[in-house]
């Protein structure tokens, strides 16, 4: 009874609409956030329309299979495309195992002490370091110090520099994925007399794989669009041959799509500007294909994991 009286006296229900400033904010906030959303869409659309209208007419089989040329109408980007793909394969092969390994150590093995916290903070800091700094590091270590292995300004030097660049991102993404694996799963495995590695190999990693793959592929997409570190280590802008179809290909000079595009944009002739736009279209397609692969792998492994 007493609660009923209390309700009646303190919260007399009023069914009329909320008034005053509260009401005003409620009305304008929805449209405001819609504008914020549209702004992003409009900029993206303007960019795409501009690039596609300039670049699509230039895009042809000839463009994809020709080497760069001093005549704009004959120029193509086959060497840059092959260079980008080769480099990203090296990057993935270096960054994925090291990144996943580091994340596994930090998340599964390391105890929570001053040292691991120091490492964690610095990995987060590394993710924010400007990419050109990684280029300087790659120039000194991979191009100069490790010359006998890398042969200087080559695919493998570029790939390893990019691997350094995206390593923090992969480590952070993998740690998030590992943290999302419920502890009860680890306990279930350990309670059966499994070693920690057996539990990680058979239960934790498979569960964390979708998140890990997604993070890695998104990081690789970032690497494939990067220019600054590769210019720093001295990737060439004019490559008129394809690397040999052997492991030796990794030790040959190379160029990549963003550098080729940058080079074309800085030429005065209009024909090269069209080639640059077409190059951007190719780069976008490669990026979107990689993102699509990330989504596909995530869905596929998620289904299998359950």
């Amino acid at each position, binding site marked *: 009874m007493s609660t009923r009286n209390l309700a009646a006296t303190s919260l007399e229900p009023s069914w009329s609409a909320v008034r005053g400033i509260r009401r005003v904010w409620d009305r304008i906030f929805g449209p405001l956030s819609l504008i914020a959303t549209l702004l992003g869409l409009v900029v993206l659309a303007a960019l795409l329309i501009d690039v596609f209208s300039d670049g699509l007419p230039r895009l042809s089989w000839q463009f994809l299979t020709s080497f760069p040329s001093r005549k704009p109408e004959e120029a193509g980007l086959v060497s840059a495309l092959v260079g980008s793909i080769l480099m990203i394969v090296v990057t993935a092969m270096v960054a994925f195992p090291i990144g996943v390994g580091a994340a596994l150590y930090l998340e599964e093995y390391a105890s929570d002490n001053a040292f691991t916290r120091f490492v964690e903070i610095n990995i987060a800091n590394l993710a924010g370091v400007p990419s050109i700094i990684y280029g300087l590091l790659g120039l000194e270590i991979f191009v100069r110090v490790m010359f006998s292995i890398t042969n200087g300004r080559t695919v493998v030097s570029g790939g390893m520099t990019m691997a350094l660049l995206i390593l923090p991102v992969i480590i952070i993404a993998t740690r998030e994925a590992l943290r999302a694996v419920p502890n*009860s799963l*680890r306990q279930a495995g350990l309670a059966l*007399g499994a070693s920690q590695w057996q539990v990680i190999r058979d239960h934790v990693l498979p569960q964390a794989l979708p998140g890990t793959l997604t993070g890695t592929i998104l990081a690789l997409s970032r690497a494939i669009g990067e220019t600054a570190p590769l210019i720093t280590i001295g990737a060439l802008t004019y490559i008129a041959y394809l690397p040999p179809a052997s492991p030796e290909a990794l030790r040959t000079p190379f160029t990549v799509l963003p550098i080729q595009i940058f080079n074309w944009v800085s030429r005065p002739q209009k024909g090269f500007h069209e080639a640059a736009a077409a190059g951007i279209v190719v780069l976008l397609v490669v990026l979107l294909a990689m993102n699509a692969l990330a989504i596909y792998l995530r869905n596929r492994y998620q289904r299998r994991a359950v």
Partner: protein
Amino acid sequence: MTVQTATETKTSTNGATGQTNYRASIKDPILMLNNVNVWYGNTHAVRNISFDIPRHQVTALIGPSGCGKSTVLRSLNRMNELIPIARTEGEVLVNGRNLYDASVDPVVVRRHIGMVFQKPNPFPKSIYENVAWGARINGYKGNMDELVEESLRGAALWDEVKDKLHESGLSLSGGQQQRLCIARAIAVKPEIILMDEPCSALDPIATLKIEDLMRELVKKYTIVIVTHNMQQAARASDYTAFFMVNDDRVGYLVEHNHTDEIFTNPKDKNTEDYITGRFG
């Protein structure tokens, strides 16, 4: 079941609270706890726990929340060590060998002392793989199909799942999942199975099935179960250990005896108050 008489000698006295701890004498115990203390960081979780766990019997650990019964259970297969700040002192003897001896590998301990958790936690894999995995990683070389069937029969689950062994373990109901976890535990042929409130997430019918199963399993294994449910302890256990928490939030053992004795003729006033529902 062999009837052993409980000695009423006071085996230890908790000086701080003046609590008395009645230790039942057990012939041929499989597990003996001697002065087990567990700390989480600076928090003393349980103090000076000493009692014996009889072979091929169900021992229930009961007591109010926070009394450390789960902590004691997890000290029996060194699962507390997975919590970085946990520290255990004292002895837990299995067939006379101290589990906490420096030469003992916790992985081997858990292989021989299995565990079933509060919330069913099957692996997100097929039913078959849930049962087979533990045996495989422990180097089982025999016929895996037979072992899986035998373990699922042992957990009274075979008839319900025999036609869908390759479906996900997560597709089963809660009670079935818990029996799958029991099948998984017995597939590695442990000596002792620890159960941490195995029925708290289950409905009464699934609970009864697990209790029947425990009575069946205890013919081959030794079972230690933590339960909040006193009826469950009374129905399903042979021995009961009653724990309480003192004013300093430290858990201790009040009384350990035959379940019948604990429930009909408790030696300690606290035990009597708890089982009659006056607190807890």
